């Protein structure tokens, strides 16, 4: 073979390898479909929207984090803090930070000063939606550049829960906020996560790019485009056309079944579930009579609703705290379905011909179909449920003005019993009061247990107190927990998130530095 022939051969081989490599080049751009036209304000301390949390979680870290794919609070692992200790009374917590963690966009190293700044910001009403989570904080200080000390006024059920990569626990970079100001920061957020903010176009997309200095390593995926597609049908079609790799699916059994049948698609029904609870306003007749409340509870066929909503995408409630939350009672004395018992109780309460209850209800289709099913069930016991449909913002205002006898509320919370019990069943949270949150029933039978559990350092005793609180609330029939709807997502099977996924506290599968496409 001549020299020129050898050269040509080598060149040909090189070109062939080049073409082959490019033909099989790994995909590095991830397209995600979110179910909203806008993710809201781009500030982790201000954004409590589902799509907002899904988008922002890639940008920020906490001092600790939930193990990816888990939602149980006993699965916490280190994040910006390598290690931590607490005093025996649970009031002083010390976090030792990693060295060399870099903020996005060259805002320097993340140190204890940033952590202190971020936690104080999260605890301030003007800059944080979640400030009340930090009401037990006495002080937060930087002991040295890599040590943060938090002192509490009293122990709280999950201190790690408020410093993790969730809500106010997401760490912002001090220099970025100070240099840009809060308003500008909310348009260009700066954190330390595996992906940095790049661009946000309302109604279209938000783009994140790989943060190559990420402390866990350079992300394999180089770019994430979050497409904002509020229409379920359009999102679905875009997924089928290959324009999306992962999407928030339509939240029903039929959609789940269909997605599971598509070759090359993984359909996920994951935690946290949103629990549908019927709250009875106990200050309004006839619901001020416990027999009437019990009658309504007996008339609800929890299994029927489970079947109606879908066996794979929902589950029956077991208590007034959702399944799987730390401290949830698995065998709460919920009243079973018994139509005769319901009718007898109504007669005993002086309503032999039945009763009429009124409810103000959101027009959101998923919630409305649930309430119509409940309406049909109650009718069989002689209970007429009059539903006044209003759009969602009006619903949220009017149910807080005590205008509805029965309130159907569907929510997921941080998975510790205290949060659900405090927000829905403690007298401090009664709607219409200055400290009101979402206690629509005016329930106050378990205040002592909820308060005692909050500051109980002994974990076993704390759980016993939460269980007791749930028994009391269930026996008082302040509310009837009915069903829990799981979050439905779908993704291509060529997308490997890098971890097995059971749930996502931030309401969307998080993309890690190890997440990648296998093809």
């Amino acid at each position, binding site marked *: 073979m001549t020299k020129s022939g050898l050269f040509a051969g080598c060149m040909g081989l090189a070109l062939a390898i080049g073409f082959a490599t490019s033909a099989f080049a790994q995909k590095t751009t991830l397209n995600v479909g979110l179910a909203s036209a*806008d993710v809201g304000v781009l500030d982790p301390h201000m954004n409590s929207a589902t799509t907002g949390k899904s988008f922002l979680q890639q940008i920020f870290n906490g001092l600790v984090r939930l193990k990816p794919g888990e939602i149980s609070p006993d699965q916490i692992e280190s994040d910006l803090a390598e290690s931590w200790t607490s005093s025996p009374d649970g009031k002083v917590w010390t976090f030792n930070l990693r060295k060399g963690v870099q903020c996005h966009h060259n805002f320097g190293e993340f140190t204890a000063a940033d952590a202190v700044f971020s936690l104080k910001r999260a605890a301030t*009403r003007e800059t944080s939606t979640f400030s*009340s989570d930090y009401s037990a904080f006495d002080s937060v200080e930087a002991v040295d550049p890599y040590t943060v000390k938090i002192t509490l006024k009293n122990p709280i059920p999950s201190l790690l829960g408020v410093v993790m990569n969730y809500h106010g626990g997401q760490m912002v970079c001090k220099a970025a906020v100070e240099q840009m100001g809060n308003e500008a920061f909310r348009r260009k957020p700066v954190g330390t996560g595996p992906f940095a903010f790049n661009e946000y176009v309302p109604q279209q997309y938000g783009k994140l790019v790989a943060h190559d200095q990420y402390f866990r390593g350079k992300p394999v995926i180089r770019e994430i485009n979050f497409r904002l597609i509020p229409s379920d049908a359009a999102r679905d079609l875009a997924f089928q*056309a290959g*324009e999306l790799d992962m999407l928030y699916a339509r939240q029903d059994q039929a959609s789940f079944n269909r997605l599971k049948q598509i070759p090359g698609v993984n359909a996920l029904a994951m935690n946290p579930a949103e629990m549908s609870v019927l709250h009875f306003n106990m200050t309004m007749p006839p619901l001020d009579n416990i027999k009437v409340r019990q009658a309504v509870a007996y008339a609800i066929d929890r299994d029927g609703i489970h079947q109606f909503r879908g066996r794979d995408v929902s589950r029956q409630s077991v208590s007034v705290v959702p399944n799987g939350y730390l401290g949830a009672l698995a065998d709460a004395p919920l009243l079973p379905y018994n139509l005769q018992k319901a009718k007898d109780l109504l007669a005993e309460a002086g309503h032999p011909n039945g009763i009429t209850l009124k409810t103000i209800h959101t027009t959101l289709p998923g919630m409305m179909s649930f309430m119509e099913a409940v309406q049909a069930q109650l009718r069989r016991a002689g209970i007429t449920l009059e539903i006044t449909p209003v*759009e969602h913002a009006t619903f949220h205002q009017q149910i807080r003005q005590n205008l509805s006898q029965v309130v159907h509320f569907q929510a997921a919370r941080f998975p510790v019993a205290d949060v659900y019990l405090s927000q829905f069943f403690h007298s401090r949270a009664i709607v219409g009061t*200055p*400290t009101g*949150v979402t206690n629509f029933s005016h329930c106050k039978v378990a205040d002592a247990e909820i308060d005692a559990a909050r500051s109980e350092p002994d974990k076993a005793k704390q759980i016993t107190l939460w269980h007791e609180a749930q028994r009391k609330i269930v026996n008082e029939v302040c509310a009837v927990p009915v069903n829990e709807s799981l979050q439905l997502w779908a993704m291509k099977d060529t997308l490997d998130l890098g971890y097995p996924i059971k749930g996502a506290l931030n309401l969307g599968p998080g993309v890690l530095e190890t997440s990648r496409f296998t093809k």
Partner: protein
Amino acid sequence: MTAFLVRRLGFALITLFAVLTIIFLIVRILPGDPAQVILGDQADAATVAALRTRLGLDQPLLVQYATFLAGAVRGDWGASLVTGRPVVQEVLSVLPWTVELTVYALLIGAVTGIPLGVWAAVNRNRATDYIVRMVSLLGLSFPAFVSGILLLIGFAIQLRWFPVISGQRGTWNAWLQSLALPAINLGLIMAAYITRVTRSAMLEVLSEDYVRTARAKGVPWPAVVWRHALRNALIPIITIVGLYLGVLIGNSVLTEIVFNRPGLGKLIVGALNQRDYTMLQGMMVIYTLLVVLINLATDIVYGIADPRVKLQ
């Protein structure tokens, strides 16, 4: 002409002021609290009240109105209550999308609807007339979101000619591909309107004496139809196009949602759901201005189409 324009602009300012006042009042009378929407359902009542104060929503209505008017006069429409982004920036960022969609839908509507309407009128009570009338009726009665999804299934999923997510920019090709289906979706509905109006206007004109005279003088039939009759039938067509354009700008929301395009309609619905007062006010100004401009343009086109119409 100048006096006409000045007078119309004067009316436009009065209309704008009236619309602003009505919108200001309506959004505040509606139940629903923007502070609650912004903070979500885990905030306590005191935090919600603090945000209301920060946003100035606890001020008496008159004070809020005075602040709003003072800002409006200065050209300051404030920032979105929900996202904090400037209202003008938000509205201007979606306006081109709405305008291009509307213009292309109009083009498709006019290019398809006028010839079809003329053809149906010329062939009155024949098979072609019945077919055109049936198709246009179908176009009028088909909801935009259903036709949109059918177009997507056919042309984006099955044939793969167009993208599903149509908010694409970059190259001309990408832009046209991205605009095609939504414009066709809206354009076909517009075509249905124009076809029916053109047909009835043409039928009226074709029975006029001057048409018969033109034919008797030996003017070729195509020239009679296209040069003489159509020109005289244009006024009702222009009217319907002007009216429908105004409606289209606000009502294209379903098309914007199905094809995932940004636009004024989608922004208005989002702002309404979130009780974003400042955003709604800003958008209403733009929307009112657009409708006023379209009406003005319609009046001017009347004068061009029919010299008997004086712009006085």
